[in-house]
């Protein structure tokens, strides 16, 4: 005890940890893409008049909101291969990064679905009716009239969801993926943990900086996108 910290060394760890940044970004972008796809399917289910689809979508959203991402990771990474093995399917060829992308995409899909549903419902019904009345088909009306307005409503939430997702990529280390936190941990164990606090603070600063940039970007995109557009009535 009475350990002395070397605060001045914190900046020197940032470039070392940043070496794993491309992997973190890869995980972020892939899970973002898949969460949007799954989220769109779930949102369509939640909005449809079909009762079964509605119930499945609602069940999906509440299940994914109830389970901690860490437990989902353990369930899929440690549990699922055992189950599949017993059924004669070998899952050992799947990379750890794939598991992380799958888990993050699944857990974020619920938030994405809720975001899309709320944005869709915020667009005035009359907009769609007006599009039909000038002879547009339902899909054209959605693509050209409803979607552009819903997107404007969804941008702030989307930005927030991306920030949350980015922070959740930090869980990749739990199954041994060397993302930025994984790299921070291996740097700290390489020096027997003597500089671990300095390394974690450096990693925290990286996350903070990226979140800050993402937040500013969201504001910028929102401003550019909604400029000159009539706000969708909520």
């Amino acid at each position: 005890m009475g350990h002395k910290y070397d605060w001045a060394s914190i900046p020197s760890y940032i470039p070392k940890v940043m070496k794993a940044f491309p992997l973190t970004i890869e995980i972020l972008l892939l899970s973002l893409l898949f969460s949007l796809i799954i989220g769109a399917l779930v949102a369509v289910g939640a909005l449809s008049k079909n009762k079964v689809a509605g119930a499945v979508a609602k069940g999906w959203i509440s299940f994914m909101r109830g389970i901690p991402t860490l437990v989902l990771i353990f369930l899929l990474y440690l549990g699922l291969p055992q189950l599949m093995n017993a059924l004669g399917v070998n899952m050992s060829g799947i990379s750890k990064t794939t598991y992380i992308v799958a888990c993050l995409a699944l857990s974020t899909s619920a938030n994405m679905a809720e975001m899309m549903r709320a944005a869709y419902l915020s667009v005035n019904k009359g907009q769609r009716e007006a599009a039909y009345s000038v002879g547009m088909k339902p899909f054209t009306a959605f693509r050209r009239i409803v979607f552009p307005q819903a997107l404007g409503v969804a941008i702030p939430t989307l930005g927030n969801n991306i920030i949350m997702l980015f922070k959740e990529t930090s869980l990749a280390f739990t199954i041994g993926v060397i993302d930025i936190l994984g790299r921070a941990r291996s740097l700290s164990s390489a020096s027997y943990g003597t500089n671990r606090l300095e390394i974690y603070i450096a990693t925290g600063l990286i996350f903070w900086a990226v979140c800050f940039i993402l937040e500013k970007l969201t504001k910028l995109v929102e401003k550019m996108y909604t400029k000159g557009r009539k706000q969708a009535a909520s």
Partner: protein
Amino acid sequence: MIINFRFIAESIPKLLGAIPITLLMAFASAVIGWLLGLGIALIRKNKVPVLSQIFAVYVSFLRGVPMIILLYISYYALPNIIYSYGVSIGREINVDAVPAVAYAIIALVLEQSAYASEIFRSSLAAVDEGQMEAAYSVGMTKTQALARIVLPQAMTIALPNLSGLFLGLVKGTSLAYYVGVYEITATANLLAMPALNFIEAYIMTTIIYELISFIFNKIFRAVENNLKKFRAVAA
């Protein structure tokens, strides 16, 4: 046999026994964190010089850093800080006696205070200015107006977001595993390890978390409905 039912029967009591520590972390962090959050929101709303700038950075930092890193920082930095403080007042404090759950709660409190302060800030802003003026006009002091008129309305507006924050907090406690707290997730892992009963352990864990979320969701909904009486005025 794919699923080992004997393992399930034997581990259920142990997993259920870990629920209190998860709930303790969640409740303690919510109560302390939200009170701090309210204080921060009031400081920032009233634009108290210096403090409001400090808290702007505080909130931004805590919202930008993942929980797991906050846990590590709290776990590795605090024992030293406590020890050094002990030395400065001339006492040798045995920091090993401080349970890991205390560090986890501190990290969770910090995070909760940041998120809650943003929720309170926007809900305070959502209460009409006229409400405060009306309270002044009938002779209330600022504290009275805040406590009796503005806060009840702001709380009602904040509640749906607070319920989301709390459910996220319950899920976040699962990370305390990494600083050595034997809450639900850690217990499941510990039980599963010897015979590699992962699928059973994590299915049970999932069910427990889903039930906890479900119950708290119902409770918050009931409270929201109950508080609607304040809302009618606020609208």
